[in-house]
């Protein structure tokens, strides 16, 4: 029952969000701020996680495929495809759901409980549109860059394993990551991430916008936002993969 109510309220909110802004100028003023806060500020965590996962994946793959029958390029190839297909989009978005989702939900939730949203409404402004549209737009715009960046950094992480240890040679690795490269995988990953970016930002906005009560409830809203957008990411991952890779 609750899920039906949530979907209904969510749709109603989105219906209010996606209209032409009252004042275009105010939208363009908000957008760069959000691009910075949701996109640029996420770069450090994307870099750190990608570089480690790239390195670890290379080591693991190499250790688990110690078979003389397998070609030497297989480690690089497996690392690359895992990064491109799943890690840099799905796993990265699950992590960003934690960071960006809780950020959006708590910011909007706080504005709700301290009556700032009422104050916007009372001026005759569509608060959903004013507050949420720049956030969704900014995050969806930034996502492809974050994903492609994560791919590049992840691959670099694998290379560093070759450069600084004797687990794998850089020559083998470089051959592997170029072998049978399918550009469509990058496209698929970017499309997926756009869907995830929309889910993370809109679901978090929904929970924040409908928060009621006190500081504790803002915490709850942000937990709900992270948990539910993570579940939705996994579900939509299945859906989009079925559509695009089958």
């Amino acid at each position, binding site marked *: 029952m609750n899920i039906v109510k949530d979907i209904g309220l969510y749709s109603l909110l989105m219906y209010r969000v996606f209209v032409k802004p*009252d*004042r275009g*100028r*105010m939208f363009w003023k908000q957008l760069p701020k959000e691009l910075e806060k949701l996109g640029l500020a996420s770069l450090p965590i994307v870099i750190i996680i990608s570089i480690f996962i790239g390195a670890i994946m290379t080591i693991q793959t190499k250790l688990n495929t110690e078979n003389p029958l397998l070609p030497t390029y297989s480690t690089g190839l497996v690392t690359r495809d895992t990064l491109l297909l799943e890690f840099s989009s799905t796993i990265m978005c699950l992590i960003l759901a934690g960071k960006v989702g809780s950020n959006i939900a708590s910011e909007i939730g*706080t*504005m709700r409980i*301290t*009556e*700032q949203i*009422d*104050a916007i*409404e*009372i*001026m*005759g*402004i*569509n608060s959903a549109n004013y507050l949420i549209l720049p956030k969704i737009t900014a995050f969806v715009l930034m996502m492809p860059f974050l994903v492609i960046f994560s791919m590049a950094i992840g691959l670099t992480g694998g290379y560093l394993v070759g450069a600084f240890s004797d687990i794998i040679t850089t020559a083998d690795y470089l051959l592997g990551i170029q072998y049978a490269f399918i550009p469509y995988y990058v496209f698929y990953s970017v499309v997926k991430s756009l869907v995830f970016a929309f889910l993370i930002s809109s679901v978090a906005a929904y929970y924040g916008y409908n928060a009621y009560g006190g500081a504790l409830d803002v915490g709850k809203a942000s937990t709900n936002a992270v948990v539910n957008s993570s579940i939705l990411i996994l579900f939509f991952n299945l859906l989009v993969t079925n559509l695009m890779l089958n």
Partner: protein
Amino acid sequence: MIEVSHLFKSFDGEQVLKDISAVFETGKCNMIIGQSGSGKTVLMKSIIGLHRVDSGKIEYDSRNLPDMRMRDIRRLRREVGMLFQGSALFDSMTVMENVMYPLEMFSSSTRLEMENRAKFCLDRVNLNEHSYHLFPSEISGGMQKRVAIARAIALNPKYLFCDEPNSGLDPKTSLIIDQLIYEITHEFNIKDLNDFVFASELYKQVKKINQ
């Protein structure tokens, strides 16, 4: 003139407003008094459509708010200023930006004119230049209330709603704010709907609710 008749409002089965009727006349300070939790805030928010009422009429010069479409409600709200119980200043903006916000949103004047208007309003509530670039978290509760008043009057509202303009303030500051609202009402000839927990001799009309 705002005419409220037979207003009912409940939250999840809990009846908060029961058959409220009142008339708020133009150019007068009208006051609502009632115990804590009696529904003063709910009544005010219902009158401006922040809460959807269960039944009853809210007529702004014979335009009934519950019947109005969202677009018309928004237009009506541009004639309204409201001071919230907790000030509700935007905490990501400075004092100046808070007062500039409604102007930037709706007025078509130049930036300089807007700044002058904002300065005028801040000056009106006795806030000096020193505080313009501070954030709401960096100023005192009384100053926050005064900034909120300045923001509420920035667009020259026809109706000014004040929800406990002087709760939590010391007697001296609260007297200053009383005086301020009284003066502003006369200066701007606005309809003023004040939410007070205690009576003050400045207010001529008293509406009692729920008790």
